[in-house]
């Protein structure tokens, strides 16, 4: 039996389907879910979520904060900002990274740091 995965953003369901494995990054570290995982609720940091479908196909999603809930082989990922790797525009991502880097150098506050990490993640997944 496979996992039933739903990745939901406030505006739409980004991804839904069956998966063998889901890897996500919580605020404490990476965690992988397989069939039969114990009920779990976690807060997600800025990181990639990787969904591995039964055929071995991998879907990568840039998740900029959110939550994950697992119960009875259902994985629900809630994220207010998330992008499928295939949706990311590399040129735009690179530009965003440059401006984020500049902002961070000018003013190294947590907000700019988060922006830079988001930009890095997007570029990493898009490449």
């Amino acid at each position: 039996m496979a996992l039933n995965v739903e990745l939901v953003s406030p505006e739409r369901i980004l991804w839904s389907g069956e998966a063998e494995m889901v890897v996500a990054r919580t605020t404490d570290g990476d965690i992988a879910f397989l069939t039969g995982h114990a009920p779990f609720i976690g807060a997600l940091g800025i990181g990639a979520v990787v969904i591995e479908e039964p055929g071995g196909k991998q879907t990568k999603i840039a998740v900029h904060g959110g939550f994950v809930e697992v119960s009875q082989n259902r994985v629900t990922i809630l994220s207010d900002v998330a992008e499928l790797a295939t949706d990311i525009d590399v040129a735009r991502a690179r530009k965003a990274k440059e401006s984020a880097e500049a902002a961070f150098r000018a003013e190294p506050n947590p907000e700019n740091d988060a922006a830079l990490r988001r930009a890095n993640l997007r570029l990493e997944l898009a490449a």
Partner: protein
Amino acid sequence: MASGQERILRRRIKSVQSTKKITKAMELISASRIVKAQQRVAAARPYSEQITAVIGNLAAAGAGLSSPLLQQRDVVRTVAYVVITSDRGLAGAYNSNVIRSAERAVRAAQAEGKETRLVVIGKKAEKYFRFRKMPLEASWQGMTDTPTYEDARKVATFVTEKFVSGEYDQVELIYTQFLSLGTQRVVNRRFMPLESTAIEAAAAGPSADYEFEPDPGLILERLLPRYAEARLFAALLDASASEHAARQRAMKSATDNAEELITKLSRVMNRARQDAITTEIMEIISGAESLAQGEGGPEDLLVDHVGATEYFDKMHRPHAHPHTAGAPS
């Protein structure tokens, strides 16, 4: 005179016709946008349902509903109202209904001795309250047509900050709820402190033994602002769908009105044209009649006659006959 009236009527009909074309187009556009807005409402539902469920699970796990966003204040001194209207008019009573409801709520709160604050979304509410010199805490525009989550986040962050800092003791949300294509209703919902009834209901369900990472309290702390955003986003989407529905209805009745007006005016115009034609015919007939009457009559030949007589007179000047004096005059 009659043809002048006809021309004026024709011009009016033309102007009504072009108005009708516009209202018809707006009606069709609104109709298609309602469908899109409804889809957006439906697409946003899973997220808010899931987030409520997660909060319920956290509450069931004893996350402790002690977050400031959930705390009912003992003394409510300041109430803030978030009023959602549209940027554009031509939507019937859509905006005035919301504004009226907001004003009533504000007055009721003031009568109870509370301070009130206004946070408005949409140009219409801003204009209305500005004109009445009612101070606005904040005003947003350009988000009600097709609201994005980013818009909802901006507003929610602003309000949440003020609420947590204690500037507001309570926040109310006044917007138009989309019940169906035919029915939209202005509702006044409590936004903050967040209503814990839905959460408690979710918590009451059978709960599994969850693992948490980090601990439930921290997750809840991060989750509640998102929950507030999702609720505001849902309200914005509802308002947007209602706006399009109201506009479609208003434009439909405008189109119907224009059609009716065109029929009426055409009728009046046709009568005027008929009158003009009748008068013209009458004039022609009477002219012709007077011509017919005079045909062969002595008046018509008067000049010839006189000339002839004079000529005749001249011809026979030497021995003028008296019979010329007896010629018809």
